[in-house]
């Protein structure tokens, strides 16, 4: 990276006005959860294990000191999910956390490797109940009433692309991408979910949340991540929130079955190995907590930097961060 190209590079990317808007946003979020009796918690940013999702790569660091003379590899967490689920299993009740999350390899107008994530868990809620609370939180945080709509993932693909994302195979999805002029798609080698991601992010996402908040629901089972599956096994109780064509939040009716969670970790690590990525150390403490018993709950993570971008009509994450990667 070209460093210190301009003398003015020491300055923050966000204007002082934007930094004040950020502070107001955070204050209203704190007030929202305080009023609802949700407990604010803090969990470690650096952990010894990491999620196995092949699409998320960790930033690593290393502790050397008492007890670890040869050093202990640590992973900067991409979400506080595993630690928060351990608190839930320990009987915390509803909890929320506002903190930094980290992802390696991600930088651009909508991505910074270090970003601010709001994450919360609601025992006794399912995904539908949590979506209502997400909408309420966003409207309260912005002091703005926004219309809310819900669209099933499969219905979006049928409406906009004329294809069934639960049935179509990789070849059919590739043909769909070519038919809709996703330029350069002819040269891509992707699996089924890769094609779904391409269609979603290039053709559907820009159309979502134009008039308000759009929740996309019922993701394909192959993209369940940490959500529980529907009884028919075809879709997952996972939702995403979009506003102004921007992905803001991802939520689940949480998977609480320790055996299934262990299987998903193993499957994802297999996919990592076959793609030439390093497998991640599986979080045994999380599996033990699930074994002990995670209350039936729903949880969601919401990107605060992007929410601020939407609120202020800014199109580069650098404009809402004091110091983005390019300004370190």
């Amino acid at each position, binding site marked *: 990276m070209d460093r210190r190209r301009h003398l003015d590079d020491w300055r923050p990317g966000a204007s002082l006005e934007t930094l004040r808007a950020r502070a107001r946003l955070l204050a209203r979020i704190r007030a929202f959860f305080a009023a609802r009796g949700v407990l604010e918690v803090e969990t470690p940013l650096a952990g010894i294990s990491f999620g196995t999702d092949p*699409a998320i790569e960790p930033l690593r660091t290393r502790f050397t000191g008492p007890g670890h003379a040869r050093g202990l590899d640590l992973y900067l967490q991409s979400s506080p999910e595993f630690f928060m689920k351990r608190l839930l299993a320990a009987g915390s009740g509803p909890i929320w956390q506002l903190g930094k999350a980290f992802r390696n390899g991600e930088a*651009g107008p909508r991505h910074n490797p270090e970003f601010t994530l709001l994450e919360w868990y609601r025992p006794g809620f399912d995904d539908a109940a949590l979506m209502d609370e997400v909408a309420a939180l966003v409207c309260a945080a912005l002091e703005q009433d926004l219309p809310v709509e819900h669209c099933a993932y499969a219905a979006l693909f049928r409406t906009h692309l004329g294809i069934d994302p639960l049935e179509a195979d990789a070849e059919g999805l590739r043909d769909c991408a070519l038919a809709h002029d996703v330029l350069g798609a002819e040269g891509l080698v992707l699996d089924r979910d890769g094609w779904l991601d391409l269609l979603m992010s290039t053709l559907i996402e820009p159309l979502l949340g134009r008039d308000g908040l759009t929740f996309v629901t019922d993701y394909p089972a192959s993209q369940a991540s940490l959500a529980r599956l529907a009884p028919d096994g075809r879709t997952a109780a996972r939702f995403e929130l979009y506003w102004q064509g921007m992905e803001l939040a*991802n939520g689940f009716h949480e998977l609480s079955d320790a055996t299934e969670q262990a299987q998903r970790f193993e499957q994802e690590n297999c996919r990592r190995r076959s793609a030439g990525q390093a497998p991640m150390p599986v979080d045994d403490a999380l599996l033990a907590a699930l074994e002990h018993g995670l209350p039936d709950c729903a949880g969601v993570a919401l990107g605060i930097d992007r929410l601020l971008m939407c609120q202020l009509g800014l199109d580069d994450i650098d404009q809402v961060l004091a110091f983005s990667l390019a300004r370190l």
Partner: protein
Amino acid sequence: MASYNTNEFRSGLKLMLDGDPCVIIENEFVKPGKGQAFNRVKLRNLKTGRVLEKTFKSGESVEAADVMERDLAYLYTDGEFWYFMDNETYEQYQADANAMGEAVKWIKEQDVCNVTLWNGQPIVVEAPNFVVLEITETDPGLKGDTSGGGGKPATLETGAVVRVPLFVQTGEKIKVDTRSGEYVSRAKDD
């Protein structure tokens, strides 16, 4: 063979795509929260000038194009090729009509042109932004008209035709902007 990872993509980087050298104009990182990352890239084909878009899976590598730009002096043409020389190394290059494009209309011997070389071969020749050329033929204008309003066609020594003010006459030298193909002013004799 040299290649670039998508993480190295930035505007100005030169890549090989479908057998043609291209330069990146814009590079956008696209990634769903839980899914495949892509780079959506806008490029210009350096041979045709055409702008195209491509989507790459992030992390892939793409062949680099061995492309460089040089300032070369125009020597002469044999009708089929146009010959250029690097005034420092005395190395000579030949460009075909395709690479010459519009530049043929404007350049004279010894003019220094910006030449894009791909694998050592000229693929794009740009005329200097301004050239001074003699008018070989134009209708005599009305005497006393110095306003320049209206204008008339004038053929230049290279064969190019530009619109000039009525007061400019055959045998005079004029300055032309090669990017717009427009008359700028009369040129003073050195």
